[in-house]
C-alpha cells in the first residue's frame, strides 16, 4: 500500500495533466510567492515566523486551560458544561482570528487582479476553467490552513473536555470542535474573499482597505493572545478566600456564538438557543461561501473589463493632501526635499507592503491600549477623566505607528526603479534627511491629532485640545528620531532580513515606549489640565526636538544615495580560486 505522504508528494511533483491543474497550481503558488523578498529562503523564513506566531498560542493555551479545567472539575463539577463551552468559545475565536489574519496577509491573492486578467485573458482558456481553478486553489489553501490551525487545539480540547466521559465522548468533542472551528474558519475566509473581490472590482482604495483590515485582524489576534489567560480563571480558594471560577463573557451579537451553537448542537447539548445558533452558523457559512464564489466569478469578468478598457473612474487617488501639505511646511524652501517627501508619502499611500508593516505595528499599540483600558474591568466612569491609561492613547498608538513607519522605510518599493534617483538626484545632500523627517511628520501628525480627538469624548474636548499641545511635540520628536536612525532614501535599498533585530533591540523599543508614550502621558497627568504646566512640558519637549533637529542637520550632511549598488552585483560573483595558473593570453 502506498504511504499517504508519499502519495501526496507524488501528486505534487508529477507533471500536471490538464489546463485546470496547471492553473490551479499556479494560483496556489501565488499564495506562497512575494515580490518584496528577494529569495525563497527569505520568504520561507518569513512564513515560518508568521506560522510560529499563530500556532504558539494554540499550543500553549490547552496546557494552561487544561490545568484550570481539571481543578474546576474537582471543585465545581456543576460548572463543567459551562467551562467546556468557554473553552470551545476560545478556540472558535482563535480559529476565526487566526484564519482571518492569514487571509489578510494573503489579501492580494484572494481574488483576481488586473495582472491575472492581462496574462490569462489572451490565452485560449474558457473563463470557467480559470475561475474554477482559482476557486479550487482557494479551497485547498483554506482547508490546509484551517485544518492546521484547528487540529492543534481539537486534540487537546477533546482529551480534556471528554476526560470525564467515555471514549465516545472524546470522539464527539473532537468532531464538534473540528466542525465548529472549521465552519468558523470557512465563514471568515469566505467573507474576506468576498470583500476582496468587491473592493478590488469596485474601488480603487483596496490597498488602504487591506491595510485597515490587517490592522484590525492583527489587533484582534494580539488582543486574543493577551486576554487568553483571563478567559478561564479558577481560584482554588483556601481558609480565607472562597474558591471561584471567572469566565470572560462574549457579547450575544458575536458570530462566535453561532458557531458555539453548532458546537453544542453536535455535542448534543439540549437547548433551543443552541439549535438556533447552529442554524444561523450553517446558514451564514453557506451564504458567505456562495457569495465568495459569485464575487470571484464577477471579479474575473470585472478585471478583464478593467484590463481591456481602463475606465476614467479607475484613476489613481491623490496621495494624502494633508500629509503632503504638512511635509511641505516641514521641508522649508528646499524643492528637492519636497520632491523626495512627496515620493515617500505617495509610496506609503499606494503600496500595501509598506502599509502592512505600519498596520502590524499599529496593532501592537491598539492591543496595549485595549489591555490598559480593560484593567478598569468595565468601569467606564474611571475612563471619563484624565488618567494615564486614557492620555497615553494617542501617544502609544502614534509611537507604534512610528515604529512601523521606520520599518516600512526599509522595505523596498520597485527596487530597479531606484536608478532614477541615482541618475537624476545628487548623491549626497541633507535634503534626503530633511525629506525623511518631513514625511514622517506629515504622516504621523494627522493620525496623532485624530487619535487625540478620539479621547475628546472621554476627557472632554478642552482637555483633549490641551493634550494636543503635548502630542504634537512628541510626534516631532518621533520624526526627528526616525530621521536620525535612517541614512538613505526610504524604499530604495534592498531589504535586509531581520534588520529590526527584535531579539537584541527590544529594550530600545521598550525604552521608546516609556520615552514617547508613558512618561509624556504621566507628565500630562502631573500637569492636571493646568495650561501653564502643559505649556511648560511642551516647551521641554520642543527643546529636546530642537536638539535632535540640530543633530539631524549635522548628520544629514553625510546622507547619500548609494551610488555603488551596481558594484554589489560584482561582489555577488564568487570566484573560487582552485590554484590553476592561467596562461597570460586567457587571463582576464
Amino acid at each position: 500500500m502506498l504511504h499517504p505522504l508519499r502519495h501526496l508528494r507524488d501528486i505534487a511533483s508529477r507533471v500536471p495533466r490538464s489546463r485546470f491543474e496547471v492553473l490551479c497550481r499556479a494560483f496556489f503558488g501565488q499564495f506562497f510567492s512575494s515580490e518584496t523578498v528577494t529569495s525563497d529562503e527569505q520568504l520561507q523564513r518569513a512564513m515560518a515566523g508568521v506560522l510560529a506566531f499563530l500556532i504558539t498560542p494554540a499550543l500553549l493555551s490547552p496546557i494552561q486551560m487544561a490545568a484550570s479545567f481539571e481543578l474546576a472539575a474537582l471543585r465545581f463539577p456543576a460548572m463543567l458544561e459551562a467551562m467546556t463551552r468557554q473553552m470551545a468559545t476560545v478556540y472558535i475565536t482563535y480559529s476565526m482570528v487566526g484564519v482571518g489574519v492569514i487571509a489578510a496577509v494573503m489579501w492580494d491573492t484572494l481574488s483576481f487582479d488586473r495582472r491575472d486578467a492581462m496574462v490569462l485573458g489572451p490565452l485560449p482558456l474558457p473563463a470557467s476553467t480559470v475561475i474554477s481553478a482559482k476557486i479550487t486553489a482557494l479551497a485547498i489553501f483554506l482547508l490546509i490552513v484551517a485544518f492546521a490551525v484547528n487540529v492543534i487545539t481539537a486534540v487537546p480540547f477533546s482529551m480534556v473536555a471528554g476526560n470525564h466521559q467515555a471514549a465516545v465522548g472524546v470522539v464527539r468533542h473532537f468532531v464538534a470542535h473540528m466542525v465548529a472551528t472549521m465552519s468558523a474558519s470557512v465563514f471568515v475566509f469566505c467573507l474576506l474573499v468576498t470583500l476582496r473581490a468587491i473592493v478590488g472590482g469596485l474601488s480603487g482604495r483596496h490597498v488602504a482597505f487591506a491595510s485597515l483590515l490587517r490592522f484590525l485582524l492583527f489587533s484582534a489576534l494580539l488582543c486574543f493572545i493577551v486576554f487568553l489567560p483571563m478567559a478561564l480563571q479558577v481560584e482554588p480558594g483556601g481558609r480565607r478566600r472562597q474558591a471561584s471560577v471567572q469566565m470572560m463573557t462574549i457579547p450575544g451579537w458575536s458570530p462566535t456564538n453561532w458557531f458555539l451553537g453548532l458546537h453544542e448542537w453536535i455535542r448534543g447539548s439540549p437547548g433551543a438557543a443552541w439549535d438556533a445558533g447552529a442554524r444561523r452558523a450553517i446558514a451564514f457559512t453557506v451564504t458567505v461561501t456562495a457569495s465568495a464564489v459569485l464575487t470571484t466569478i464577477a471579479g474575473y469578468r470585472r478585471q478583464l473589463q478593467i484590463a481591456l478598457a481602463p475606465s476614467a473612474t479607475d484613476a489613481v487617488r491623490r496621495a494624502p493632501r494633508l500629509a503632503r501639505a504638512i511635509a511641505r511646511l516641514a521641508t522649508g524652501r528646499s524643492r528637492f526635499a519636497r520632491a523626495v517627501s512627496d515620493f515617500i508619502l505617495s509610496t506609503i499611500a499606494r503600496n500595501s507592503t509598506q502599509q502592512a508593516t505600519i498596520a502590524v505595528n499599529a496593532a501592537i499599540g491598539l492591543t496595549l491600549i485595549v489591555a490598559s483600558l480593560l484593567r478598569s474591568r468595565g468601569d467606564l466612569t474611571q475612563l471619563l477623566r484624565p488618567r494615564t491609561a486614557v492620555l497615553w492613547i494617542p501617544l502609544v498608538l502614534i509611537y507604534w505607528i512610528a515604529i512601523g513607519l521606520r520599518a516600512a522605510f526599509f522595505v523596498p518599493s520597485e527596487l530597479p526603479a531606484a536608478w532614477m534617483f541615482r541618475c537624476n538626484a545628487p548623491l549626497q545632500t541633507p535634503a534626503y534627511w530633511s525629506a525623511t523627517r518631513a514625511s514622517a511628520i506629515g504622516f504621523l501628525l494627522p493620525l496623532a491629532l485624530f487619535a487625540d480627538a478620539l479621547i475628546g469624548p472621554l476627557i472632554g474636548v478642552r482637555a483633549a485640545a490641551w493634550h494636543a499641545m503635548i502630542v504634537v511635540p512628541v510626534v516631532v520628536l518621533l520624526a526627528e528620531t526616525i530621521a536620525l536612525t535612517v541614512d538613505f532614501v526610504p524604499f530604495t535599498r534592498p531589504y535586509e532580513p531581520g534588520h529590526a533585530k527584535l531579539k537584541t533591540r527590544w529594550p530600545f523599543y521598550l525604552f521608546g515606549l516609556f520615552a514617547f508614550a508613558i512618561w509624556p502621558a504621566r507628565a500630562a497627568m502631573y500637569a492636571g489640565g493646568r495650561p501653564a504646566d502643559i505649556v511648560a512640558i511642551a516647551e521641554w519637549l520642543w527643546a529636546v526636538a530642537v536638539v535632535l533637529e540640530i543633530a539631524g542637520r549635522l548628520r544629514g550632511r553625510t546622507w547619500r544615495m548609494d551610488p555603488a549598488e551596481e558594484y554589489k552585483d560584482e561582489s555577488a560573483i564568487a570566484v573560487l580560486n582552485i590554484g590553476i595558473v592561467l596562461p597570460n593570453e586567457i587571463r582576464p
Partner: protein
Amino acid sequence: MLAVRRLTKHYGALVAIHDVSFEARPGEVLGLLGPNGSGKSTTVKILTGLLRQTTGTVQLDGADAFADLEAYKRIIGYVPEEPYLYSYLTGPEYLRLVGRLRELPERALNDKIDRFLQLLGIYDDRHQTLSSYSKGMRQKILIAASVLHNPRIVVLDEPFSGLDVSAARVLKGFVRAIAAEGKIVIFSSHVLEVVEQVCSRVVILKDGRIVGHDSVASLRATLRLPSLDAVFASLVAEEKIEERTNGLLAAMKA
C-alpha cells in the same frame, strides 16, 4: 566633446568591455551597436555615471567628466533600456518627481510636463498609474523625463522600444533635432535601420571591443557593402545564419 579613452570594465573575472575609445561630438548622434553581451549597456551605464569603469577615462571638454559627478549628472539625460519606473505613480507625478529632483522651477516644470504629455499623446492618461501604461507609453515617459532639464548630453538606450510607428517617426526627428541644437547624443540600439536613419557616426562593439568606428557612409564605402545591416553582419561575423534559421524552423515544426 565627450571622449571615452581606453575604457575597461571587469565584473569579477568577466571582462564586459576592453580598451574602448571613441568620441561623441556636439551636433551629432553617435550610434552604439553590437549584439547581445557586446558591452553596449555597460558602456552606456558608465557614460551616465551609474557604473564606474575599472580603468580608462571619460572626458568632457578635456577634463575628467566624473571628477564632479553631480555636475556631470546635471547635464546628462538618460533613457534606460529597461523601463523601470515607480509604477504606482501617474505619468505627471513621475515627471514632476524627476523635474523636482533636478530642481526645475515649478511653474515651468508643470508647463513642460503638460506640453510633453500632449505632444506625446498621453495627456488623456495622465490620471492613470504607470502600471496601467503600455510599454510604448512608459517609453514616452522615460524619454520626456530624460530631456525635461534640457540636458547637454543625451544617452538613449533602445529609446524607441515599444513605440508605435508615428511616435517613433516623431521621436527620430526629435533626436536629430536635439543633436542639431548642438547637444551630444549617444544612441544605443539593435535596430540597424533606425541607427542608419538617426546616427551620424557609429561605434560597433563585439565581445566588449570596438570592431568598427566611423560614419555610416564611410563604413559602407570602406567595406563596399550596401547597407549598415550588411556592414554590421560583416563586422560582428554573424555566421551560419541560414543554418540557424532552418534549425529554428525545424524546431518549431517538431
